[in-house]
């Protein structure tokens, strides 16, 4: 885990993004995937990003990688606003920001072998000549516990976990400063998961190691990798803080529910919840104006429905989007 001292590598300021779905009747429907998300990442730091399914994590990654345009807000990489760059200015920065896509299978071109895919990414490294690049492919595959023999395979000839590691190798190939890791270990067994996490930690420890945004549902992994953690739901950051703050003193009801859900056995929880819908998940989104989580929050009061919630600092470095944060215990 890298020291906290370091320049800001990446700053996300009030990022918003919505998608319009199909037109239905008179009005277009929208999905708000990001709603005023702000985040900073220093060199050699790992930010853990956790949140429910569909909360906008992958969308954030695509925006940071300049694959999607934001509707509002800015993303600064070393002080330069990436979405305002022209194609020519952006080009040399491209290799500095990498991503491991959530779905390993669909992120590989089915017409290319793994070697071709890695060489494709290595073309961005002008220092290497062709024979060095091929050698580098072998090294990268070794690093992710695969070995050079996997180079000749097509994506559909590999298992889910093998492909996921190939995806990590591809992201490491151009020696980036930043990697958005979208569930990079979801398909790995616990032993290889450990090896991959250790590899990432080692890389980060090196001089000028990369910064990571690490999306995961595995809190155990999060405990090892994250320096700071952001909790996101419905496109909103509801809490952020250092790893210890989030794990030991979570303040937001949603963060607490998340940690609790992971620690309690499912059987018991389901029994507690009775036969009906799980109390933690309600299907309607909440009323406008008030707290987004109103309908799903066991601590809700009348005031929650009236006031939109804002992020406020309740401890040094810990931000919470809930007016009751201090009261709840």
């Amino acid at each position, binding site marked *: 885990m890298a020291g906290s001292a370091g320049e800001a590598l990446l700053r996300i300021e009030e990022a918003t993004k919505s998608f319009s779905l199909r037109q239905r009747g008179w009005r277009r429907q929208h999905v708000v995937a990001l709603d005023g998300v702000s985040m900073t990442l220093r060199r050699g730091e790992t930010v853990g990003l956790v949140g429910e399914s569909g909360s906008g994590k992958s969308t954030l990654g695509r925006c940071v990688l300049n*694959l999607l345009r934001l509707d509002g807000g800015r993303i600064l990489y070393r002080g330069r606003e990436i979405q305002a760059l022209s194609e020519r200015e952006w080009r040399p920065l491209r*290799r500095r*920001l*990498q991503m491991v896509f959530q779905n390993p299978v669909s992120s590989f071109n089915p017409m290319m072998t793994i070697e*071709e895919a890695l060489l494709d990414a290595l073309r961005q490294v002008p220092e290497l000549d062709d024979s060095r690049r091929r050698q580098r492919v*072998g090294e990268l595959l070794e690093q992710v516990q695969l070995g050079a023999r996997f180079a000749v395979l097509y994506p559909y000839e590999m298992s889910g976990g093998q492909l996921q590691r190939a995806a990590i190798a591809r*992201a490491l190939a151009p020696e980036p400063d930043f990697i958005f890791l979208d569930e990079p270990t979801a398909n790995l067994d616990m032993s290889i998961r450990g090896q991959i996490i250790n590899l990432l930690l080692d890389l980060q420890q090196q001089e000028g190691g990369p910064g990571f945004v690490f999306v995961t549902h595995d809190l155990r992994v999060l405990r090892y990798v994250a320096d700071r953690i952001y909790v996101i739901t419905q496109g909103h950051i509801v809490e952020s803080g250092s790893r210890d703050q989030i794990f030991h003193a979570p303040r937001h009801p949603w963060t607490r529910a998340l940690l609790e859900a992971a620690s309690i056995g499912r059987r018991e929880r389901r029994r507690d919840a009775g036969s009906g819908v799980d109390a933690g998940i309600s299907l309607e989104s909440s009323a406008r104006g008030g707290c987004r989580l109103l309908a799903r929050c066991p601590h809700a009061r009348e005031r929650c429905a009236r006031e939109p919630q804002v992020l406020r600092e309740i401890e040094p470095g810990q931000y919470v989007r809930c007016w009751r944060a201090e009261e709840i215990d």
Partner: protein
Amino acid sequence: MSALAGGQTIPERPSLLQRMMRINGALRVRLNLGLLALIVLLGLLAPLLPLHDPVRPNPLHRFKPPSTEHPFGTDGNGMDVLSRTIHAIRTDFALAISSVALGIIVGAPLGALSGYFGGRLDSVITRITEVFQGFPQILFGMAVLAAAGNTMVNLVLILAFYNVPVYSKMVRSVTLPLREADFVQAARVAGNSPLSVVFRHVLPNTLVPVFSQLPLSCAYAAQMIAGLSFIGLGVAIPTPEWGSMIQLGANQLVFGKWWASIFPGLALFISVWLLNNVSDLFGSLVVRRG
């Protein structure tokens, strides 16, 4: 970072040809492809076979019925029908293949570019291809050949002209969903320029439907060539070509001199039939994989 411990090296990867061979799994495809290959081979080897000269007229032997000397008989100019039917394979296939290839080479990239970039480029390309497809084929061919000269090159261009919109439309429709595919996004992250994304990543992935359409286009082109030749355009008489042979012989059909047109007709029919079969089977293979 050990430099490939234990001298592990990356084995050579299979060639493009080997990769393409992986798709022809089904026996029936092989059978049809085999017969087609046989026909093409026959055409290629024609000059080496012990056949009569296909273009030497012999006024003394006009409309001779099939015999041991001339197994398919002779035509109105006294030329050997067997030899001409076999030599015509070269003409017809060469014309069909080159026109389809040209159509793909121009049409597929156009379709990929228009599908991937969308916007104004897309509407321009789509509009143009629609206009192309609006022309009635035969009439258009007749007009151009009459105006620009009745040459083989012009014939190929006309047929290619017809194939361009077919392939650009097809590739465009396959490109649209690919634009959103993760691997295309990943290709951008890997540093590909927009053009390189289109040509290295999107285009190769649209080729499966193109390949399944290919034999069908060839069959269609062969029919068109024969059709144009039949009405006296396209390939001029001494050159062996099925369409013109059928036309020459057709006049004599009513007098019982069937051989001069039946044999080239049969050859045309069989080729078109095999090509259609292969196309269907390719198509069903593709569907089953998806």
